[in-house]
């Protein structure tokens, strides 16, 4: 009987530890998402990137921390000054994109993230990279939309690519604007705080729409 008690106790302790680990994971993720959602500056994004990096190394079977670590670094690269600094941050993002792809192959969100990574690379040095990367980014967003035609992030980012291209070539932005418009109700329908699945991106579509109205 005594033996059983110890066994039970061990079972319960390990269970609570696990639950605690689970709780710690939740808390750590929430903390990371908070710092990512805070005022958008390099320091906050680096902090959230670091936080997700720590979570990713400890919960290596979860794709969410990989996703947000990459996203933080990509967003940080957009704020950084100079090609070299931008590239350094994107170099940090890359392994997390790769790892997320490995954990959940053909996940529309992760594919859209990869497209966003290409887009950020392009944005760092558009003159020399435009030719090779614009097609690649567009193609990747296209694939994300094929995997999930209702993915508003893939749509908004694709719309942004199309908008930029249309502006450059002086052609109609109607297609891009239509796509951004279509994404907004999908963004609004997303339930926030229910899981760690991404819900960001409405600002991308809204910003585009502001340009479209002109």
């Amino acid at each position, binding site marked *: *009987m005594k033996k059983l*008690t110890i066994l*039970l*106790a061990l079972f*319960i*302790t390990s269970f*609570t*530890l696990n639950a*605690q680990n689970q709780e*710690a*994971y939740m*808390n*750590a993720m929430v903390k990371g998402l908070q710092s990512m959602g805070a005022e958008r500056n390099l*320091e906050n994004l*680096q*902090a959230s*990137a*670091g*936080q997700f*990096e*720590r*979570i990713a190394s*400890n*919960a290596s079977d979860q794709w969410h921390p990989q996703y947000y670590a990459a996203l933080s670094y990509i967003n940080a690269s957009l704020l950084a000054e*100079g*090609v*070299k600094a931008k*590239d*350094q941050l994107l*170099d*940090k993002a890359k392994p997390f994109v790769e790892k997320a792809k490995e954990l959940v192959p053909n996940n529309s969100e992760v594919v859209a993230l990869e497209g966003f990574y290409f887009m950020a*690379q392009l944005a760092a*040095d558009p*003159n*020399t*990279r435009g*030719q*090779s*990367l*614009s*097609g*690649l980014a*567009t*193609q990747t967003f*296209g*694939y994300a*939309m*094929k995997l999930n035609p209702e993915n508003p992030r893939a749509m908004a980012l*694709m719309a942004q690519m*199309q908008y930029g*291209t249309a502006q*450059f*070539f002086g*052609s109609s932005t109607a*297609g891009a604007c239509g796509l951004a418009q279509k994404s907004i109700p999908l963004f609004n329908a997303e339930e926030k705080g229910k899981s760690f699945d991404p819900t960001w991106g409405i600002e991308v579509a809204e910003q585009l729409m502001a340009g479209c109205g002109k």
Partner: protein
Amino acid sequence: MQCFKFIILFVLAIASNAKAQTVISGKVTDSQGQSIPFANVYIKGSFDGANSKNDGSFSFQTSETGQRTLMVSFIGFKTFEKTLELNGQPIQVDVILEEQINKIDGVTITAGAFEASDIKKVTVLKPLDIVTTASAAGDIMGAINTLPGTATVGESGRLFVRGGEGYETKVFIDGLEVRNAFGATAPNVPTRGRFSPFLFKGTIFSTGGYSAEYGQALSSALVLNSNDIAEKTQADISVMTVGGDLAYTKKWENSSISGKVQYTDLRPYQDMIKQDFDWKVAPNGKVAELVFRQKINGTGLLKVYTNMDISNLSIRQPNINNGGAKDTVSIGNDYFYLNTSYKDIIADRWSVRAGVSTTLNQEKIDFNTDVIEEDEKGVHAKLALNWEAAEKVSVNMGAEFFAKKYTNKFNIENGPNDAFDFKENIASTFVETDYFASNKFVVRTGLRLEHSSLLGQTWVNPRLAMSYKLTEKGQFSLAYGQYLQSAQNDYALVNQNLKPEKAAHYILNYQYIHNDRVFRVETYFKKYDDLVKFIDENDFNPNNYSNAGFGEAKGVDVFWRDSKTFENTDYWISYSYVDSKRDYRDFSSLATPSFVSNHNFSFVAKHFVVPLRTQFGATYNFASSRPFHNPNKSGFQNDKTPTFHDLSLNAAFLIKPNIILYMSSSNIFGRNNVFGYQYADQANAQGIYERQEIGQGAKRFIFLSLFITLTKDGQENQLDNL
């Protein structure tokens, strides 16, 4: 009772989990005391941690207790680890991170080498730069010719590097030899490189002092690195004033295949635009290319590239020895090149590169009624291993095998009707060690051993290079090396005992890269020995051919590139000074050869006009006068040509995202550049040797082309754009 015990245990378990929080704070600095922001500070195996702030300070709480490891990591530094006892008492830790030796972004050896690489690295030239250089007309070699160390030799089109002849530059694709990298041509008719710049993601142009991995090149190695797996499925169509091509690329998850067919024909163009050369049949040809890529086991990459090229031309050239009557020279060239390479990581710290290349080149030369057939077959096999022996040491070693067979058949009217051939096999091994004393100082020592089957002899060539990084932006490099190259086919055919020609390079380089601006200055001394010497080129007596030739070249190369100062504008300036003298071939004394011009200058500018979606480009090339031998004067190599000037312009207009209209013209001002003179063998009745100019094929070359790319995205409107 048991039930009660269980509850107690459960409560205890919960209680023990509700532990005290420990605050850990401190500062992260490097060994010089500079604070490091954004370092990742955390407790190993937990989610607790923080990033250091701008002043390097950090502070965070952890609920962990007992002995735990504090980890601090930051890119470019070794990860810091320290065991802490966590018991609720605040802990102060000062972290000093030690710099990690970075073999990729730290100090690199730059003496002699111009690297044009993929989008990531800060380099001197990018692959796209090659295509958009005005004077290049899409030829890799043309763009390389705007870099310092090269000389304009307008009647050749080959790369003449630092007082070296065209043949002294060797071309490699993925580390494997390419024979006959330039198209076949008639005497004094310039040629072009055979390979499209779009095949390559990076280029290393070495003007001397190159690694022990590269042999059989006296002056220069042009190392072309081909693209990896294609990024997307697409079709490409080009329509040009001189022909067109069609290409299709299919990409899968782990592999890709591309095929291209190209047809070039200068006949319609030359019928329209007046030529100075008298073409019987303007150059025309067909090229087929196949590129295959396959990823193997995640880390391995197999590359296969084939090029088949059939070309013809026929030209009438005035013969000064025949009262100006014209000779007809026709060239038919069949070319095949196959390059297969594989690279992989085979173990922790070990990677392998292996490959085989094959070149088959047949040239049929009709000179009036005489026929000469040249046939060259070459195979190059290489196996190389890279070993990251230690944090500060990497080793590159390998073995190579070159086999060559050259046949020359003469069918001369009223003359000999004969065939000659020779075979040469060269086996070589190389080993090279990079020692990174710090992130500021690297030394590379190498040794190359070559054995020739033809001569039954073995040579050992040492190589040495080092770089010292003065600041983040500037560094000095030094390089030394001994180089060998087998005697040229035409001479080895006559005398098979000719030893390889030799050169020793000494190079001192300073490079400064900052903010999209590059400044390089390099000075060198090159000593030639065992150059082939003969009395008369048309003499077939082996005893009259020897290795008695020698020579030297010294000079300074300067390069400045700036894509920062002017918006949407990129320009570079190259200047080369060379002083070179030789006594080789049929020279009667030590003299400067005719291909050497003391001063070469290039200015390349590109400006993108956003509202027009057009990139405009200009290249100005200058070469000072070249020496030639004038038999009407006393002495040897006793006269000088006029100077060379060429201003080329181009424009690339992006009509749609996938349609580019490209226009270029060489020699806008139509200057009559003279490269040299041919003198009659005999003096005329007045005792004067008559001469004729060696000049340009036409005043200018105008090129128009439309490039169309078709992709099938998941997006319909991508295609609608067409």
